């Protein structure tokens, strides 16, 4: 089920009513758990079994790890290995199975061995990368001694399955959410209203901006079969840059809003990433729950920056390469991650050589560096959006002026939309770089906030999106 659908509106209304009825707290949590399974099964019912499997495996393994805390490390480690193997086994089979077969085929071919893999007709379970990381964070936290096993299965199952974050994050940690399930909670009037406001904002980003304003331009440029000129290549990439931000940040904002309506707080997942100055700043603002997950469960265990300088760079690259692969089973995603790893490494090297920490002095310097960061991030989006390296090369050739005679691709109306929306996104993000939305709304006249929210909701209603799935559902 997607947030931008009529089905979700009805579903959410029913869930809200049930949650406000005077049931015992355990019954309310049970309602939420059942609702979350309905939310997931509404996409493709059989895949609920996979979710149950992942939930149950980590429930028992975490208890096993905790029960063996006084035994030798090898026992605890074996429990962890089972958990990681099962979770990565699920995701490996469903998400990377075809990719692995294709690469094996290519490897065999390089030795002159012809082997044709069987047809791979497996549907990718929606959100598998997200809930796998959620269950793994639970087991890893217990293993690392950051938290104890959750005493009640209901709280644990609801933590894994809670529908606002289930299919596209934020990737929550047990410490963030489980304590909220342990005591009765109900949204106050202001939490409910603010939650609805965030839901409207998220839907506006998704339906009006990402789908209605930018998707067609990105599709036209990245779907072009021939060379793409300079203006088209840049506008198509800027369109995708805005689309993926509004799509994913829109989902996260809607998820936070929906959860707040129920009285539960989810963490921010985006903080004005296109106003970032540098790449470490970018990753503190973009998909925060993934970048912190990778930091805590991959980069730090690899050694982080505690070893030699060379080892730190290797850890950084490995983390970003795997982060790229997490997004999709394709080498283009690996290159995307690799480019970010390279950017982060170069930035780290420059900072260590110049001794500059934090933002540079001077507003114009900060603005120039932010625009440079944004431009370089756009280069990486080419690999993220293109489905092949040929396609990426076509767009990059255009962006660097190597296709001056290419036929135009984008109709003027698309160019106008992309330019206007991109400029708006950049201005808004720059102005809100160091403030939260809540602070801005606190300062605005109430009638202006109301007028803006009404305009957004009205735009969502008349845009009548076709219920397009969020881009991150496929990851």
């Amino acid at each position, binding site marked *: 089920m997607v947030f931008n*659908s*009529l*089905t*979700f509106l*009805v579903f959410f209304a029913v869930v809200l009513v049930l949650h406000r009825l005077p049931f015992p707290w355990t019954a309310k949590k049970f309602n939420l758990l059942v609702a979350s399974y309905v939310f997931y099964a*509404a*996409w*493709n019912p059989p895949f609920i079994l996979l979710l149950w499997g992942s939930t149950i495996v980590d429930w028992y393994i975490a208890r096993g790890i905790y029960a063996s805390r006084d035994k030798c490390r090898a026992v605890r480690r074996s429990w962890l290995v089972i958990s990681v193997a099962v979770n990565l086994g699920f995701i490996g089979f469903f998400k990377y199975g075809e990719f692995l077969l294709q690469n094996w085929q290519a490897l065999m071919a390089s030795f002159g061995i012809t082997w044709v893999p069987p047809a791979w007709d497996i549907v990718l379970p929606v959100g598998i990368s997200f809930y796998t990381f959620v269950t793994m964070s639970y087991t890893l936290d217990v293993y*690392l*001694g*950051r*938290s*104890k096993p959750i005493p009640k299965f209901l709280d644990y199952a609801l933590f894994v399955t809670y529908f606002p974050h289930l299919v596209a994050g934020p990737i929550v*940690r047990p*410490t*963030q*959410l489980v*304590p*909220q399930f342990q005591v009765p909670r109900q949204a106050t*009037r*202001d939490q409910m*209203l*603010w939650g*609805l*406001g965030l839901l409207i904002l998220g839907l506006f980003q998704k339906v*009006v901006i990402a789908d*209605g*304003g930018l998707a*067609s331009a990105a599709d036209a440029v990245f779907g072009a079969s021939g060379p793409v000129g300079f203006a088209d290549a840049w506008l198509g990439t800027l369109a995708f840059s805005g689309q993926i931000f509004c799509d994913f940040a829109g989902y996260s904002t809607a998820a*936070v809003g929906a959860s707040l309506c129920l009285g539960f*707080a989810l*963490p921010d997942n985006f903080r004005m990433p296109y106003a970032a100055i540098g790449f470490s700043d970018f990753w503190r603002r973009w998909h925060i*729950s993934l970048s*912190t997950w990778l930091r*805590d469960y991959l980069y730090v265990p690899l050694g982080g920056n505690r070893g030699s300088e060379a080892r730190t760079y290797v850890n950084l690259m490995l983390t970003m390469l795997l982060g790229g692969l997490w997004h999709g089973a394709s080498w283009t995603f690996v290159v995307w991650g690799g480019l970010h790893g390279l950017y982060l490494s170069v930035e780290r090297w420059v900072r260590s050589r110049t001794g500059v920490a934090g933002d540079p002095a001077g507003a114009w310097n900060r603005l120039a560096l932010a625009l440079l960061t944004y431009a370089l991030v756009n280069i990486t989006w080419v690999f993220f959006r293109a489905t092949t390296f040929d396609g990426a090369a076509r767009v990059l050739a255009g962006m660097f002026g190597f296709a001056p005679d290419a*036929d*135009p*691709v*984008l*109709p*003027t*109306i698309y160019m106008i*939309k992309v330019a206007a929306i991109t400029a708006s996104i950049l201005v808004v993000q720059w102005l809100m770089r160091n403030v939260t939305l*809540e602070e801005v*709304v606190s300062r605005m006249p*109430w*009638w202006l*906030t*109301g007028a803006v*929210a*009404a*305009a957004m*909701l*009205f*735009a969502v*209603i*008349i*845009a*009548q999106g076709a*219920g397009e799935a969020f881009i991150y559902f496929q990851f």
Partner: protein
Amino acid sequence: MKQLHEQDVVTEREIPRARLGAIGWLVLALVVVAVAAWEWKMRDLGLVAGDLGDGKSAWAVERRKIASGDHDGVVIVGGSRILFDTNLDVWAEMTGRRPVQLALPGMSGQQFLRDLAVNSRFDGFVLIDVTPEQFFRVGRGHPAFEGVLDYWEDEGPAKRTGHHIGRFLSRYLAFLDNQYSLTELIDQLEIRNRGKIPGPFLRPWKLSENYEDRQYHLWREIETNESLREHAIRVWLGRGLGPPDEALIARICADVRGSVAMIRARGGDVVFIRPPSSGGYYEREQQNTPRDRTWDRMLREADVLGIHFEDYPDMQGFELPELSHLTREDAVRFTRAYVGVLRERYVGLRPPPVLEPAG
């Protein structure tokens, strides 16, 4: 327990210090007024409540009727002409059978005929529309229906439910028309493009009203609004697809022959129909896909009955507002004419005799 980062503590969310109650009431009032005004404006432009629209979900509902056996043994496949030019009530009245309407705008019926032949046990009667320039080409068809042949089986409960809720709301709200969405209205602005890019302005705009069982009618505004009619004609005439090559025609004929044979082997049959077109559109069809190269050859090779409007006087003389589709009144006349031909040929399409009560 170790606490290292903000990810290790319970999340709390700040709530703005603002008059959220007043803001909520203001939003509600403004949105109600704005939506009411928008609804009034859309009705003024000719949209009507009860126009259910069409899409992959609506098509999937019909296709699932074939899979479940919930049908009267008649299926229509093809492009938009047979959608607009067929009146399902007239069909039911004349034959006692209501066809399952599986035709799709911009599509060739060939792949749908193959779908029925290969992926179903359908053993009834198939009427397949031939719009020559669509039938004898390889194309993806209308983007709104891309992947529809897989979609009907894969459609999950959320999409199915959403479809029914959408139809319910469409019965009361005229503005719920995806061809008059905000995005479409912006994209339909006429702005000069670079080079030869057609742009969204030259995509087909709203042409139809859609009702139960995917009954299409030509939108009244196309009959009465000259600028909309001229836009549609400009779109049709601007699409120079060129003549298909011999190899493609041969491949399509062979594919049709195979599909027909499979359906006949199960006891069913297939009839082809060529609905009328006019003006510059008809002339281009004559030039690019002349009857002897395409229509006659396919009927001969597949050994099937074909109903070509040029062969029947009562299927001629229509005035097609935008050169390609009949008005809803003319669709009744055309349906009566071609179903009459079918009834003569197929005993099974004659309605069962009404028995007078004894005494």
